[in-house]
């Protein structure tokens, strides 16, 4: 079995986990929820194994490089970070309900990578510009940041849904974490994501300076990562200095994640230097 097959199977494992989380939420049973956690953990382990396997395969092909060099590989890594982050939060906050919103994100990411006809799962040799030790640091930092923002996005959605309804401890909403916990979690994740986005942009800048002789060139991808940075910087200032809370922060978090998505996918439709990410 090669890594692509394994990762296709993981897509369905994530799909099952998402299904179980949602079933647990809808039918108010804890058993599917417990099962969901196990399935998601299995998926994450398989996902990590798939990445390692792919790494080995690339060496067998004689073009060895870390599997972080194109859109397929980045999506696979993105799915892994989402799953791992969510599992950590689930353990820490002892609440599985958020899983119904996050596990589908991991599933969709993997499904997009495995099933989209525009994305090749072939192991491709590394282009000269990507041959750098900065590649691993840059990509990992960016995707840790992206997944923290993805989780914050999911939590913001939960927050807005819960905020708009009346409390009722028996309903689905009543079993969600309290608004305060959601609000705090959203904020913590955004700080975490912001730090890693900053590190991602900086490692990218240092790399660009060693490859092209300039640390900043207003390339569309660079610019969009900066736009994302501005949005989250706004959010942090609004919350820390003006005491913005709840709804407005949740909306800003959603806008921020839209900017993340555009930085990740949308930029491929614009001209620029980051074209490796588009295939």
């Amino acid at each position, binding site marked *: 079995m090669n890594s692509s097959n394994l990762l296709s199977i993981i897509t369905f494992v994530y799909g099952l986990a998402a299904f179980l989380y949602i079933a647990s939420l809808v039918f108010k049973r804890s058993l599917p929820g417990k099962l969901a956690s196990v399935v998601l953990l299995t998926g994450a382990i398989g996902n990590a194994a798939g990445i390692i396997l792919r790494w080995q395969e690339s060496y067998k092909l004689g*073009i060895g490089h870390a599997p972080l060099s194109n859109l397929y590989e980045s999506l696979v890594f993105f799915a892994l970070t989402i799953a791992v982050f969510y599992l950590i939060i689930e353990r820490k906050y002892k609440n599985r309900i958020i899983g119904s919103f996050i596990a589908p994100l991991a599933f969709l990411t993997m499904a997009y990578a495995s099933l989209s006809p525009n994305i090749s799962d072939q192991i*491709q*040799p590394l*282009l*000269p*510009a990507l*041959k*750098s030790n900065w590649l691993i640091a840059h990509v990992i930092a960016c995707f840790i940041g992206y997944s923290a923002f993805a989780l914050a996005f999911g939590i913001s959605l939960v927050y807005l849904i819960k905020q708009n309804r009346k409390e009722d401890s028996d309903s689905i909403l009543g079993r969600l974490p309290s608004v305060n916990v959601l609000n*705090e979690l959203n904020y*913590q994740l955004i*700080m*975490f994501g*912001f*730090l890693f986005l*900053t*590190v991602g942009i*900086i490692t990218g*800048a*240092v790399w660009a*300076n*060693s*490859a*092209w*002789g*300039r*640390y*900043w060139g*207003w390339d*569309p991808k660079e*610019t*969009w990562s*900066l*736009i994302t940075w*501005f*949005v989250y*910087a*706004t959010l942090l*200032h*609004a919350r820390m*200095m*003006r005491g913005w809370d709840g709804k407005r922060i949740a909306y800003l978090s959603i806008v921020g994640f839209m*900017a993340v998505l555009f930085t990740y996918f949308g*930029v491929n439709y*614009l*001209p620029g230097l980051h074209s490796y990410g588009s295939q």
Partner: protein
Amino acid sequence: MRYLQSYFNELWKFFVSVKLSISLLLSLAATSIIGTVIPQNKNPAEYVKAFGDFFYRLFDVFDFFDMYQSWWFQMLIILLLINIIVCSIDRLSKTWKITFVKNPKFNVSRFRTLSNKEEFIKDGAPEQLKSIYETIVSKGFGYSRTEDTEKGFCIFAEKWRWTRLGVYVVHLSIILLLIGAVIGSNFGFDGFVNIPEGKGVKSVRISNSAETHPLDFEIRCDDFNVTFYESGAPKEFRSSLTILENSKPVLQKNIIVNDPLRYKGINIFQSSYGPLPPEEVTLKFTIKESGISYVKKLLIGQQISIPEGLGTFVLKGFTKSAAFRGHAIGESFIGVIEPANGKSNEIMLPLRFPSFDDMRKGDVLVSVEGYKEKYYTGLQVTKDPGVWVVYAGFIFMIIGCFITFFISHQRICVEAVKSGNKTKVMIAGTSNKNKLGMESVIARIIKRLNR
């Protein structure tokens, strides 16, 4: 004077507001989009073609074609810079006093009202617990102080007070980034140059302008090599460069993408490459009558006599896209045959069709045996004396963000009050951020105190 004072106060009030920061950050985010949608620094003709004359002029007025260097975008950045500096100065004096206080003030009654307050009863009188508790509490905190009260004692402890300065480190880092950028754009340059193999240059073209920038040394490209993967994608391109000062070689290095040459503060990067028309070709002359083939090496412009006294041949040149009777035949050498008697004849020697010359039905068949491929190397040549200031800014920004987000100034209070022959212990704590984290800190201390 008074008028000036109030004017200054108004200005200060304008720049000290967080509302301004938020508006500026959002404006920068929104306007930055323009430059990602409209390709920057292209030929005006391309813009007119894409947007039409009217929009071309309109966009041009707003500098949309070079928007990140436009006056209004730079003004937004300068406003943000002033905003950051003014806000920092305004708050720093207060934070500074709080941060560098010799004897921090604690107020027991404030701790008693905190929501994370925990209480328990412990055997023994407060005096028996005092020294044990002091060691336990002081272990996890940088500063601790015990005060005796009427019915017992109170231990105050705190740590990481200095992290209140973290946000100023972040702001300082942004100032450093902008200073570095200004140094770079005033005392540096960003140029490029194409050097054919074997040639040298003493100046480079400045990117996005028609200017050239002279170098005080010569860059020579001794050799260029490109290798490909099986798929046809380039694997590596490598230039052997020599730096010459007063025509004497002083430095030799092979550069590849991601591994530049640095000399006298100037960085030379492998950026691109391209083919050059070949200058030397090996031709085969096959004489029809004798059936003998002769192989000759020729340079462009060279004239040789065709063997067996059949006249002369001149290699005129090379063309990338030749056409013969309306058909494209691709890369070809062009030569002229002048027979010993008769009319001179221009002939094409396409690389793709070796026996093309057969069609002429002459008494000699000329074909291309081989030729030496020539390349030029595309180098990016830059100088940026501000880069170290920018890098310092990068380091400050990462450290500052980490401190600001994840390390908080924590203060706790442990109060012991005599209650019969037992002691009632109260513990509570505050932190300037991450309130949830404080609860787990308190839980951990209670575990140790209530053993």
